[in-house]
């Protein structure tokens, strides 16, 4: 065992402590980086050696060779990760759902002065007022204005709900693209990480990157990931593989004719894609259930209003045609209006597109062009004091009809729809809040294992610094010893 070997030991100590400080520095620099897992240089005593000298005796053997860095350890607990991602997906689902529903509430604006119920009430009152003076043109003009406000309210809401759905489609497409991009990145990592492992190194920062990608994937649609022994990771969504080794399976979006040309998501091999959690689930639920439900409600209500008011109106007599409409029926063969016999007056409302009722719901041209076409009278001759048809039409407000499968009044039907939406939104908010608390505490648990505590790092730094200083001192001492041997041996009495 020579001094030079000892020198080597000291040098190795310096190098090991430097490495430790480097790792500490890396941790401190990344103290705020999301998804960073702290690392630690694990020190190990160097491989000892048994000395072979021409004079050896037992008891002198196995000398240590200083300190080496065995590995750069990464702090991680798989169990926490799994739980965290599960709850994260659910939380994001409710967040997305709630966000869209709040938008829908804003569109429908029912608690403001601009609500549809207000317009409905005003419309019925208009008929009631017309009954008190059926021949008054002022009252007729007022009624027509109220009717136009009502139909505009219907079509505006329908239009905006449909636009919401189209906007959601853009967001959904965006997310699907993001999933594909994440899949590609995961495949690249699947190539890199085993390669690094094969060299017996720890690909810590690559593993951090993979964790970040998997977190984001959980947010979007949830995922299941299985670690392989060679460092690869198989990722699947809803039972269908997304990334296997370096191979990725893509998702595609296509307009679905069976769902009003909204997007549907499929795997590239044709199988349907089901997201059970995450933002995609939230958006899809909002688009296909909540918004569609409201739209259906508006359409049904518009259809019932159209049919019921027209049925009575066409039985009444208008000022323009006191004895009833003259033949032929319909007056214009190219007319878009349907004239069920017998007809004494023109229809009041019209729906241009039977598949898109609320949006194409409006007051018929006959009424718009001539106020005298409003039929307030019940008996032919349409005397100026006869307002019985107006009275009957205003009574429709309290009559019950079968709308959307239930027997109810028109007002109650719509109020019911609003109530359903309000409850759904409230439920989504509550779920989001509750899950948010759970996610936060799981995130804290994860952070407790992975996160960087600056005080710890500072203490470790001081430790390493002291060790480095000591090693440097030892180095100096050995250097002196060598110097004495080399330069001062044999020089006696000079």
């Amino acid at each position, binding site marked *: 065992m020579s001094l030079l070997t000892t020198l080597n030991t000291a040098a190795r100590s310096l190098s090991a402590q430097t490495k430790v400080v480097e790792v500490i520095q890396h941790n401190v620099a990344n*103290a*705020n980086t999301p998804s960073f897992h702290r690392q630690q240089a694990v020190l190990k005593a160097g491989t000892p050696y048994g000395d072979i000298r021409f004079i050896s005796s037992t008891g002198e053997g196995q000398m240590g060779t200083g300190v080496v860095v065995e590995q750069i350890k990464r702090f991680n607990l798989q169990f926490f990760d799994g739980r965290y991602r599960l709850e994260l997906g659910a939380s994001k689902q409710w967040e997305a759902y709630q966000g869209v*529903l709040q938008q829908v*509430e*804003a569109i429908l604006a*029912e*608690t403001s002065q601009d*609500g549809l*119920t*207000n317009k*409905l*009430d005003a419309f*019925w*009152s208009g008929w*009631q*007022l017309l*009954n*008190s003076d059926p*021949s008054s043109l002022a009252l007729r003009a007022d009624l027509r204005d109220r009717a136009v406000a009502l139909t505009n309210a219907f079509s505006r809401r329908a239009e905006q709900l449909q636009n919401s759905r189209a906007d959601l489609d853009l967001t959904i497409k965006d997310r699907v693209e993001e999933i594909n991009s994440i899949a590609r990145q995961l495949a690249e990592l699947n190539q890199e990480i085993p390669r690094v492992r094969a060299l017996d190194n720890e690909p810590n920062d690559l593993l951090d990157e993979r964790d970040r990608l998997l977190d984001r994937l959980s947010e979007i649609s949830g995922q299941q990931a299985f670690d392989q022994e060679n460092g690869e990771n198989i990722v699947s969504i809803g039972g269908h593989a997304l990334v296997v080794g370096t191979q990725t399976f893509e998702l595609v979006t296509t307009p679905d004719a069976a769902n009003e040309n909204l997007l549907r998501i499929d795997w590239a091999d044709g199988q349907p894609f089901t997201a059970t959690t995450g933002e995609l689930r939230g958006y899809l639920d909002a688009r296909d259930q909540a918004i569609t439900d409201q739209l259906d409600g508006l359409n049904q209500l518009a259809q019932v209003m159209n049919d019921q008011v027209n049925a009575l109106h066409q039985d009444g007599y208008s000022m323009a045609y006191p004895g009833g409409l003259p033949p032929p029926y319909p007056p214009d063969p190219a007319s878009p209006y349907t004239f069920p016999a017998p007809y004494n007056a023109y229809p009041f409302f019209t729906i241009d597109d039977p598949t898109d009722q609320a949006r194409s719901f409006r007051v018929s041209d006959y009424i718009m062009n001539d106020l005298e076409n409003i039929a307030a*009278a019940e*008996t032919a*001759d349409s*005397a*100026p*004091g*006869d*307002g*019985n048809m107006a*009275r009957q039409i*205003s*009574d429709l*407000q*309290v009559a019950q009809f079968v709308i959307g499968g239930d027997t109810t009044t028109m*007002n*109650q039907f719509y*109020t*019911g729809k*609003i*109530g359903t*939406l*309000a*409850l759904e*939104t*409230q439920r989504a908010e509550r779920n989001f809040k509750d899950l948010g608390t759970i996610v*936060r505490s799981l*995130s*804290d*648990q994860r*952070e*407790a*294992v992975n*996160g*960087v*505590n*600056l*005080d710890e790092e*500072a*203490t470790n*730094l*001081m430790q390493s610094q002291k060790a480095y200083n000591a090693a440097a001192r030892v180095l100096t001492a050995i250097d002196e010893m060598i110097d004495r041997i080399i330069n001062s041996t044999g020089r006696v009495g000079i």
Partner: protein
Amino acid sequence: MRVTHHMMVENQIYYSTESLDKLNQLQEKVSSGKEYRWASDNPSGAVAALTIRSTLEKHEAYIDTGNTMDGWLTATDSALASIESMLGRAINLTLDGISDTMGTKERIALGKEIDIILRQAVDAGNTKHQDEFLFAGFKTNTQPFTLVVGVPPAPDSVTYNGNALTIEDIQRNIGPEQAITVNVDGKILHDPANPTASIFNALIRTRDGLMADDRAEIEAGLADLKNVMETIKNKHTEIGARQREVHAVLQGMEKTKIELQGLLSKKEDTNMVEAISNLRQQETVYKTVLEVGSRTLSTMSLFDYMR
């Protein structure tokens, strides 16, 4: 549990956001005066409020109609009252005319008076209320009764220009599907198809009888007058009853309206005292959260103390 600085920062952000959110909600409540802004804040309350609003709107319309009806009924009532008094006078005059103490000249004088009453009655039958004829059925802009002077020996007659069909009742809604007839069909006063039941025919007959000094005619005319008087009295009572009904319903509705408004306010409006004191409290909480945050976050780490 091992705590990291990142964790503390995250938590601080969360708590101050939460606190600010609550503060914002309370501020909205106080500023707008409404307990909730969106239906989802209070679904059952919101739906109830919508229903109450609808009912209030309906009530407004009915109260409006009710007041209009009241006006019409009052006008009809006074018209009928004046016709009644005219008939009463005519009957008295006829009774005088029947008495044996009257001579031809006196009878002719009485006849002339009845002629005047006849014209007054026709005028009463043509009463207007707010530019609409009361007794013309649905034809409210056509004068119902016209006096046609007959070329002798044909008697005078009165034509009816109102509704051509049978009795026409103008109905108004005083409540949902609750209609009240507000008019008296002119045919009740004078129906050409039923000459003996007409006021004017009775008056004409009596007048002609008096002028011609024909006792039989006078007596017949008197009988007619008495019958017609009965009809008018009945109708008058009917109108009175209808008006009472309208008043009762209107009163009830005014009361209900006030109750509904109170109910709506309870559901919708903020309890200002409660909201403001909550707001004050939340301000303090927010300040505290910020204070604590600034202390914990600015706490230095060991690095600051290393030499």
